[in-house]
């Protein structure tokens, strides 16, 4: 077929379609039957699809809702605005699209609500593109195994539970154990180490004061320019809390699909599940375990499945997810924690006991795991990480035994002492992420025994002194080490010499 005939065919088809289309004059309409608790029941609109946006015409303008329950006689729709404006008898129209949000680089540095509207007092956001809130996750062939590290700057994580770009690593623990702090440090590290990773922080039902503090801190650290914050407060309707992670993921996917790397932080999915439970119960869906609906697993699995490392053909971008789950009294076998543990590629478990012992970050070496991150660990970190996790777990077991008796053999004593030093060393202040060379030098100084004569109480001071000295005396070597390659003999020697020299000043 010639080129000309294809053009003619195309034109004929367009004309035929134009004639057949009713040009939207006769809209399909429904009527609000009843409304309450953020849910409107609508009759009519037989062509409405799942998740399709409905527009309810109220006296004060159009209120949007999205269809979640499609039943034979009526539709259950969750309102995206105040339900006090919606009354029975009002006309409902189909918008003709599923929910979408603005996406693109214009969102960087901004705080938005789940519908992409600015809530930071800045100008309205105008993006060139819109992204679907609900989108199918990328298929098998579009993916590549996780192989690049996503440095958190927290040595306990980077060394023992490394996270790769495209991985989903759960942060789980009781309230006030430092879950959000870990996530924020990871965001700050992306700015400090200039990794170019875009941060997308989703606050689900978080206090507005907390979000304001976070924004301030990120601005102070100079990371806000590469961060998007999607915020919902406890005062927002459950529908917005439910939408927040999906909308934020759509924003993150823009960077993933454009060969960039993005980090999603969902803070937290427990509140997300609670918001979904509220909506489901109001929509009269049958309750299951802990009154959650039957599809609560799918709620989180379809969200986290969108985090991926893309294949080279698709631009090799990545979307890494750090979902946060809050447990009650350390119970990781509750419904939502077990669900999310099984979905993610590992978890970092934070223990209340460790937190109050002053071991911060309070990471449990025994219960934490990273299933795919090992492949993504850089050569430098890998060279010092061997056996560290096992050693630390054994130390904590031994330490609890050692409380009952004083007669310990030399081997056990030295294991406990080294464990104590390592525990001290892995303590890290908030907002103080460490670079690769700092982590490598610090770990080596303890595991190689350079700090064996330094008392545990002085370890942090010795570490700081050693790092300052290393940077002053071997800046070139440390810059080389920071690139992530396996340390050369020369670099290892300079660390040894500096560590031993520093240790002398802290002995006794």
């Amino acid at each position, binding site marked *: 077929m010639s080129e000309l005939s294809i053009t003619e065919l195309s034109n004929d088809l367009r004309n035929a379609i134009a004639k057949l289309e009713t040009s939207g004059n*006769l809209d399909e*309409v429904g009527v609000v039957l009843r409304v309450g608790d953020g849910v409107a029941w609508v009759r009519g609109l037989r062509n409405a699809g799942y998740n399709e946006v409905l527009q309810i015409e109220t006296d004060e*303008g159009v209120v949007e809702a999205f269809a979640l329950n499609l039943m*034979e006689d009526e539709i259950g729709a969750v309102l995206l605005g105040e339900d006090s404006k919606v009354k029975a008898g009002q006309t409902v*129209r189909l918008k003709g699209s599923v929910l979408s949000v603005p996406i693109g680089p214009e969102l960087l540095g901004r705080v938005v609500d789940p519908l992409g509207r600015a809530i930071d007092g800045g100008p309205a956001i105008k993006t060139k593109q819109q992204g679907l809130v609900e989108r199918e996750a990328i298929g098998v062939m579009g993916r590549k195994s996780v192989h690049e590290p996503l440095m958190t700057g927290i040595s306990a994580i980077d060394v023992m539970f490394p996270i790769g770009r495209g991985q989903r690593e759960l942060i789980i623990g009781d309230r006030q154990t430092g879950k959000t702090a870990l996530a924020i440090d990871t965001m700050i590290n992306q700015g400090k180490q200039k990794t170019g990773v875009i941060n997308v922080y989703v606050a689900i039902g978080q206090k507005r004061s907390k979000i304001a503090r976070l924004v301030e801190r990120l601005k102070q650290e100079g990371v806000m320019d590469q961060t998007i914050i999607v915020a919902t407060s406890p005062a927002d309707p459950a529908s917005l809390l439910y939408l927040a992670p999906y909308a934020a993921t759509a924003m993150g996917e823009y960077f993933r699909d454009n060969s960039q790397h993005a980090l999603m932080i969902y803070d937290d999915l427990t509140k997300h599940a609670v918001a979904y439970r509220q909506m489901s119960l109001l929509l009269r869906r049958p309750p299951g375990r802990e009154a959650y609906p039957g599809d609560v697993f799918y709620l989180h699995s379809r969200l986290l499945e969108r985090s991926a490392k893309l294949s080279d053909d698709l631009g090799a971008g990545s979307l890494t997810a750090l979902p946060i789950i809050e447990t009650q009294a350390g119970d990781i076998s509750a419904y939502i924690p077990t669900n999310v543990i099984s979905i993610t590629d590992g978890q970092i478990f934070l223990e209340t006991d460790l937190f109050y012992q002053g071991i911060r970050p309070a990471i449990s070496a025994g219960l934490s795991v990273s299933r795919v991150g090992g492949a993504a660990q850089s050569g430098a970190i890998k060279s010092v990480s061997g056996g560290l996790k096992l050693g630390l777990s054994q130390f904590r077991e031994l330490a609890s035994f050692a409380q009952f008796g004083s007669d310990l053999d030399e081997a056990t004593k030295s294991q406990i002492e080294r464990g104590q030093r390592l525990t001290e060393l892995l303590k890290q202040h908030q907002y103080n992420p460490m670079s690769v060379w700092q982590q490598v030098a610090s770990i080596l100084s303890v595991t190689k025994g350079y700090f064996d004569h330094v008392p545990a109480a002085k370890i942090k001071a010795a570490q700081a002194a050693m790092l300052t000295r290393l940077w002053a005396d071997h800046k070139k070597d440390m810059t080389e080490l920071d690139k992530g390659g396996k340390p050369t003999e020369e670099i290892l020697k300079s660390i040894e010499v500096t560590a031993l020299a520093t240790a002398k000043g802290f002995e006794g």
Partner: protein
Amino acid sequence: MAKLSRRAIAIYIAEQLTGKADSQKVILQLAAYLVDTRRTKELSLIIRDIQFYLSEAGAVSGVITTANALTAETKKAIEKYIKEQTGAKTVALDSLIDPSVIGGVKVSIPGRELDATVSRSLTVLKTRYKKA
């Protein structure tokens, strides 16, 4: 007995009314069913559903709402337009004068609506300004 959906009832009644059945008898049957199943409260919804299925069968009935009375010519033109748009055999439109629409015309037929009133344009405008 399982509760029949409004949709199933409406489809049955619309089929009976467009068929050769005695309409009075069908109405009595429906009334008896609603009283028996204590669903008389749903009557207005069922009537709307019957209207919808009757319109799908080619008998469209609806309402034209305007701020001022329409001329017979304009009403005829609207009926012709609805006939073309829906492919209905018969179109019966009642007129309603409602000053709150300010101007323009609104044609409501079962399940569909053409709203070209000034009041709707104002509502849309109000929402757009609120968003911006």
